């Protein structure tokens, strides 16, 4: 029998949810095994970086890379896998646009370390600072270097496909794996490089069953602060800051149909340069006032604009990180 | 009871006691509660501004700061004296219009550990409060002795309706507030053409001849309309028209004898106070004859108040432009 195409999956700065999502595809996982030779997947099997280094460049057919680039190790493995892979997929929101870890980009790295290592909740070790290398009797121990800002995968290596979601929906993962297999067997065409796969072409409202009318909003309210939420009416029209209008479809409007506002994990729609920009303009458009003072009062009801508009996309946004974070070098 | 801060001003202390006494006398019956600002100082009248700008405004500023500091639940400062009313309102307004002035004034106030945020105090005239807060209906209800048959010339003078930074008055030239109040008291109110013209102000002191002419104009017009009394809202107007009426008569060889009273004194009478309680007896030109007139039986209410103008009934005559709300537009 001929050699099976090689499959790899790797996590960088991420929570691991994406790995679970892959396992969630059920018996489809068996297809992966039958059609691929899994060469590297730290979560699922034992393998060393040096094994990967030993492989020939481009010898891995498909690599699903999840997690963002937070430290030198993340970058190293990203570059390594890029070299070794034919198809590199930024898998999940972290790899695509930084996701929750990206929110760290609003603060300088030192503050992050302080919070982590010198607050009451943590026991100070070695002068409170993790060091990149420490000498012990039997030699030097090394830790990867923490970067000042979190970056999406595509800002360190070129990426073939983007698969959004936090995590990507299992049925979408299954579909993508199907597609790749078919493509390998020459039964299907792969989309153009740089495309977003495993998601829809429009935004969440397209899949949302709530009724919508013309929107005019005098104040935004946190969903938990509402007396009652109309189960059928568009959440944004009820003053709930729902990110659905700007968020790429593909999840089946999971959150809105469960009565919670969309928080935007599927990222921006096609042709959009900056996710937050779309949300800002959308929210500004539905504010029902032409009086500067009143407008300000209404905007006061959005206490954390950056968090609202960039919860998942901050690291991948045009500004990428706060000035203080960039300058902390 | 609606509470206000009161800035009496120097004149009410002595020169215009009739004003102060009558205000204090009608305060209760009208449901007013006027709390005097503690240790207020002179507003500078029209003199200090001409000497030195910043000190002049600092002088006024101290009063505003004291008022703001004095918490009696009210942020409304009532000033019965026109000059005080204007100076206080003006300082508050200019400190906003020209922020640098506000800064300077506060720099000065800081020397006395005071500070005033322009806009934090609302400066209003007593008449404004009576018309717009108490309301004519409420006042009418309390009238027990209508001033029927008393022909009154309503006289506001300059500094209440002008410049009127906050647009509180119905008009700069012909405000109708005082007219409407006096009508409610039952008086015959004449359409006094000079109701907002000048009484001479400080010219009685620095250029008496100029002042006498201005006083004469007012007395002449009032006389033309056969006014029994001129009702004023300002101590300075009262003083000039009253105390200098004799001098004016001597100057022009005229013989005017028109008593000049504060509108609050007439309110007092209408509410049933006796003449003394209403502050009468302090005027230089006696108001006795005027008072006699109200003593007499009132004519039947149907009879319309004779306004001193010729009625136009001539069929050939052309219609006048209709004055929207001219008749009985009581807010």
């Amino acid at each position, binding site marked *: 029998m001929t050699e099976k195409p090689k499959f790899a999956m790797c996590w960088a700065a991420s929570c691991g949810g994406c790995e679970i999502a892959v396992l969630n595809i059920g018996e489809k996982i068996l297809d992966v095994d039958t059609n691929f030779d899994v060469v590297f997947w730290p979560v699922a099997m034992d393998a060393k970086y040096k094994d990967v280094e030993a492989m020939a460049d481009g010898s891995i057919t498909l690599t699903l890379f999840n997690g963002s680039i937070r430290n030198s190790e993340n970058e190293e493995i990203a570059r390594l896998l890029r070299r070794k892979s034919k198809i590199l997929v930024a898998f999940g929101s972290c790899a695509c646009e930084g996701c929750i870890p990206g929110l760290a980009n609003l603060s300088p790295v030192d503050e992050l370390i302080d919070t982590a290592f010198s607050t009451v909740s943590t026991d100070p070790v070695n002068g409170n600072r993790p060091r990149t290398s420490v000498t012990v009797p039997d030699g030097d121990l090394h830790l990867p270097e923490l970067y000042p800002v979190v970056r999406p995968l595509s800002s360190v290596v070129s990426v073939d496909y983007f698969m959004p979601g936090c995590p990507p929906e299992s049925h979408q993962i299954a579909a993508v794996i199907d597609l790749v297999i078919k493509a390998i067997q020459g039964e299907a065409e792969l989309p153009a490089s740089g495309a977003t796969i495993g998601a829809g*072409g*429009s*935004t*969440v*409202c*397209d899949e949302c069953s709530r009724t*919508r*009318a*013309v*929107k*005019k909003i005098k104040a935004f309210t946190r969903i938990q602060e509402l007396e009652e939420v109309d189960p059928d009416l*568009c959440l*944004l029209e009820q003053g709930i800051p729902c990110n*659905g*209008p*700007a968020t790429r*479809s593909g999840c089946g409007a999971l959150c809105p149909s469960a009565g919670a506002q969309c928080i935007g994990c599927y990222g*921006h*729609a*096609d*042709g*959009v*340069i900056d996710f937050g920009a*779309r*949300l800002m*303009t*959308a929210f*500004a*458009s*539905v504010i029902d006032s032409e009086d500067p003072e009143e407008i300000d009062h209404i905007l006061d009801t959005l206490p954390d604009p950056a968090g609202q508009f960039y919860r998942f996309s901050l690291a991948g946004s045009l500004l990428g990180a706060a000035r203080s974070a960039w300058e902390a070098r | 009871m609606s509470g206000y801060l009161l800035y009496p001003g120097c004149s009410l202390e002595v020169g215009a006691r009739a004003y102060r006494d009558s205000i204090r006398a009608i305060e209760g019956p009208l449901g007013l509660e006027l709390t005097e600002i503690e240790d207020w100082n002179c507003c500078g009248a029209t003199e200090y501004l001409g000497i030195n700008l910043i000190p002049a405004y600092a002088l006024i500023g101290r009063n505003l700061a004291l008022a703001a500091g004095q918490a009696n639940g009210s942020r409304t400062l009532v000033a019965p004296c026109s000059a005080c009313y204007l100076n206080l309102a003006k300082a508050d307004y200019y400190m906003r219009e020209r922020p640098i002035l506000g800064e300077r004034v506060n720099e000065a106030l800081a020397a006395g550990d005071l500070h005033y945020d322009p806009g934090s105090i609302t400066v209003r005239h007593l008449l404004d409060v009576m018309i717009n807060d108490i309301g004519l209906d409420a006042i009418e209800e309390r009238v027990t002795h209508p001033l029927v048959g008393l022909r009154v010339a309503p006289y506001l003078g300059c500094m209440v309706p002008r410049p009127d930074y906050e647009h509180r008055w119905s*008009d*700069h*030239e*012909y405000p109708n507030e005082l007219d409407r109040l006096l009508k409610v008291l039952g008086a015959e109110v004449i*359409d006094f*053409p*000079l109701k907002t013209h000048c009484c001479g102000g400080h010219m009685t002191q620095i250029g008496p001849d100029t002042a006498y002419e201005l006083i004469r*104009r007012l007395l*002449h*017009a009032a006389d*033309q309309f056969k006014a029994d009394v001129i009702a004023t809202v300002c101590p300075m107007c009262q003083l000039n028209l009253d105390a200098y009426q004799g001098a004016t008569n001597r100057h022009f060889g005229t013989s005017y004898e028109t008593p000049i009273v504060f509108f609050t004194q007439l309110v007092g009478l209408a509410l049933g106070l006796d003449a003394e309680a209403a502050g009468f007896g302090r005027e230089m030109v006696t108001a006795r004859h005027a008072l006699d007139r109200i003593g007499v039986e009132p004519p039947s209410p149907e009879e319309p108040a004779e306004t001193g103008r010729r009625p*136009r009934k*001539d069929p*050939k*005559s*052309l*219609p*006048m*432009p*209709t*004055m*929207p709300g*001219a008749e009985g537009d009581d807010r």
Partner: protein
Amino acid sequence: MIAPISGGAGMSGNGGRPRIGVYVCHCGSNIAGTVDVTELRTWVERRLAARGVVVARDYKFMCSSLGQDLIAKDIAEHRLDRVVVAACSPHLHEATFRTACRRAGLNPYLCELASIREQVSWVHTDTASATEKAKAVVSGAVERVARNAPLETLRVPVHPATLVVGGGIAGIQAALEIAEAGHPVYLVERDPSIGGHMAQFDKTFPTLDCSACILTPRMVSAGSHENITLLTWSEVERVDGYVGNFTATIRKKARYVDIDQCTGCGICQEKCPKRVIDNVYEAGLGYRKAIYTPFPQAVPKYPVIDQPNCTYFIKGKCRACEKFCPTGAISFEQEDEFVTIDVGNIVLATGYDLFDPRRVTQYGYGRLANVFSSLEFERMTNSAGPTNGEIVLRDGRTKPTSVGIIHCVGSRDRNYNNYCSSICCMQSLKFAHLVKERTGATVYNFYIDMRTPAKAYDEFYQRVLEEGTLFVRGKVAEVTDAARGPGEEGKLIIQTEDTLAGRQRRIPVDMVVLSAALEPRKDSSEVAKRFGISCSHDGWFIEKHPKLDPVATMTEGVFIAGCATGPKDIPATVAQGAAAAARVLGYIQQGEIEMEPIRAQVIVERCSGCRICNDLCPFNAIDFIADRGVTEINPALCQGCGTCVAACPAGAIEGTGFSNEQVVAQIDGLLLRNLEPTAVEPALV
């Protein structure tokens, strides 16, 4: 259209890049004097080659025919598919160069202007920095043009009928011009008769010919013209559609008179027992009946019943008019009617309101009997007016021996209207003349400045001077009846500073006439909104261009004429009526209208139907298609502002001519991000 840098019209060679020609104009020394044009050109060659520039030239006058030929030649020789001209403002020569490109076979919208004159050479002095800025500006234009798409101008058919709103002289003029040209016109008038303010006047300055004599014939022909449908006692309720294809809904107010029966004999008016002060036509100086035609020569001749004042409507009995009407034309049951009409163009000639002089309390109008407003005075001097043209005091009989005429009442005064009403001087001169002529009284004119700039106007001023009218330069302070002494008893005293004599004067007169300001109609802003045009802050309709397009508005197909755009005298008003008609006829002649293809359009497959954009369009171009759950934009209604493009959260609306790609690329170009990364000069960032 999103034009990827490798897309666009017939691109060949150059590694998939566009083939761009850049042309730097010297504009004599206007540009070359401040910008180093040679340096600019060579920089473009060197640094922008990688961005697709294949030709770069600088030339003395690009807009000259030689300059244009230069471009045409290159388009052919170098197979250019994009052109950038670095010269003056696009508002000046964009058309010129785009036409040149079209002639050379290149789609005009693939040509961009980079303004390095108005925005660089004329506003900066230092050559070095000006040249650097020019580089950035050109670089921006190059990036933009690379993403321009070939566009075709839009064409919409024009409905031949026209709606004229307002039956004053401006509206009548416009209606007649269009009707004469053989096209249908609907002339809508709010009052019972057309004629407007001009019908109230007796004489018109400076010729002093009788207003009625010149106006009435026009009114009659407007009333009887086969192409004009007269809709008096009517108002436009709503307007839909767009240039060439408007639909207007008009409310015909109940006349309570059946115009098919009515012969206009006037018996009803004789018999009506109810006398009403006529505040409209007689300016409050005279009376009319509760059933009335505003004036004898009214067009149409049918009367209306003034419902709120009619005894029958108030008390439920009377019906005198009905009893005496020989043709049984009275019908108290009549109700408002609505008619809907289709038109291709609209002319708004809604005129002005007179400033209410009561607001200037110190002039005593309304309080002092013998103070008159200018309109009252016009009626008084009118031989058909309440006094049969006699100038008398309010008592209706006494002739004044002295009259004061006050200019600028409510004009040139920040407490009322800041602007000059432009007709008051001439009006006041006319009044002065009439008073002299008819009463021989002493006349004083109180003015701030005499403004008599038009044909034969200043001559009229001279004439009035000769007649002995006394001119006092000073804005009157007050008019009072409070006499200071015997000389003033029983008079009105005009108090003013004679600014030329430098002293205060009190001038006793019998009568005062206030030359009141012209003001926008009280409802002008609602009207503007209804017709989709804009009002200046003081309420006059805004022209598309105050000088070069004075009767057009920003809304294609809606034109404005007469005092609705600002105070005007009769000649100017008539001229504008005619001008508006000419513009309308132009459109009708074309049969269809070309429109700039700058429009928004929805990429339906991307639209999620979130409806964020639905409320953003003041031109109602955005429709939500409920059954398909998507939003669409009507290209003919769309005016191309791009607000919805910027607002769409899904990026599903694209703006032709100003696409995101174009603008973003221009930003990058301006910031020189387009140069090879290595070449980004450090000083920039």
